[in-house]
């Protein structure tokens, strides 16, 4: 898969976030974008997903049907059960006879089959985020965009869910574009680390080998 963003221009009022910004993502791998809060990381994900309008430039190489999104907040519909929440989002990709099996399969993969008929209100933050991940894997997409999905979880739960996510990724191969401001989290994913700096955004470095030893260097850049 090859995603190419060319001459991207995006402003909020007078504040320029991206000015003639270019990036190529062509690795079937995990790409972590790291940078300070508010630097434009989430905006880039929303631009790729087509949720934010741009003032110029283009995103090549993918369409809406190629994209899944693990949002920062789980964005579950409170009055629908977990099964119904998945059903409404997977309806387009599976026919009636297979959708139930697909939901069962994905819930089993994420280890939350038991909560299938529960309402989001009855779930813990970790469980809700697992449903968010299950929804993304349920869609037969090529890339999963992730916008700091582990931000609100406590330390132990965060790494448990990341481990589960990585296991899932070995079974269901997808390209991942993760946004985070937590360097340890980015290193833990063992993918490429793309460092964003300044406004308008500049790529200050791309790291993909021996990440632990690069930590100080990345910290210095940020």
């Amino acid at each position, binding site marked *: 898969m090859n995603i190419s963003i060319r001459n991207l221009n995006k402003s909020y009022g007078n504040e320029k976030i991206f000015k003639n910004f270019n990036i190529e993502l062509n690795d079937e791998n995990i790409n972590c974008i790291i940078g300070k809060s508010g630097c434009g990381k989430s905006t880039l994900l929303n631009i790729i997903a087509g949720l934010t309008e741009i003032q110029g430039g283009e995103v090549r190489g993918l369409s809406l049907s190629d994209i899944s999104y693990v949002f920062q907040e789980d*964005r579950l519909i409170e009055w629908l059960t977990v099964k119904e929440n998945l059903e409404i989002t997977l309806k387009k990709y599976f026919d009636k006879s297979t959708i139930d099996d697909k939901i069962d399969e994905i819930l089993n993969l994420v280890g939350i089959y038991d909560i299938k008929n529960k309402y989001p209100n009855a779930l813990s933050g970790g469980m809700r985020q697992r449903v968010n991940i299950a929804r993304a894997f349920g869609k037969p997409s090529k890339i999963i965009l992730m916008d700091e999905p582990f931000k609100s979880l406590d330390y132990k739960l965060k790494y448990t869910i990341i481990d589960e996510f990585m296991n899932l990724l070995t079974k269901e191969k997808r390209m991942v574009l993760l946004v985070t401001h937590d360097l340890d989290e980015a290193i833990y994913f063992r993918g490429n680390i793309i460092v964003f700096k300044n406004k308008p955004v500049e790529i200050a470095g791309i790291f993909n080998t021996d990440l632990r030893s690069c930590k100080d260097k990345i910290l210095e850049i940020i």
Partner: protein
Amino acid sequence: MMKYSWKSKLYSLLSCLFFIGLWQLIAVITDNDIYIPRIQQVIESIKIVFMEQNFLKVILSSLYRTILSYILALIFSMILGVLSAVYPFFQYLMQPINSFAKTIPTMVLVVLLLVWFDKDITPFAVGFAIIFPILYDGVKNNIMQIDKRIIDMTKIYEVSLKDKIKKIYFPVMKFYFMSILVSTFSLTFKVVITGEVYGQPKFGIGSKIQLEKVNFNVSGIFAWIVIIVIISIFLEIINKLLRKKIYRWAK
């Protein structure tokens, strides 16, 4: 919590008893049943009203007009509310009609509708005209206030418009209607009765109240007020049961 609930019910009961006592006291002091009848006179009038041959027909006629005007207002407000939220054209189209219906005094509307319609239709038409703008505004605003993040999520997962209406817009409207059902239905009921007072259809609570007024039977008017209150209490109980069912996901 349980203790508190019983305590609040006791205080409500004591408050009711206080005002009933005050009413009786004023009735005894004024000693003129044309102004304020005594409680026992009202009870007597309730018995007479109950014994009347067409009692049920009168009640059901008023309730029928109320339910019909409410349901029609509900359907129209849902359709036009969704259209206005999705297509701004409908919002602009509805703006003058909505402002007119909201600002015109009820009595002026009754008089105008009496000129245009038959006396049987007027109470129903007044009910519809008063309640529709309230429901329409509520539906439109509730849909427009749906979390944009949820709408973005449906965009990513390519949820169809049909499913969005069925699983998101419709439930949002349902929760909104449940939150205002008692107050708006009671308002429609009151407005329909007002329409009946002036329209004088053959059967209707309003027609009966007007008849009692003509006969200077104030205890009869009070009797009908008590009956209206009892009906409203029933409606509230039904609403509570519906709410329990509809909000089961929030437990």
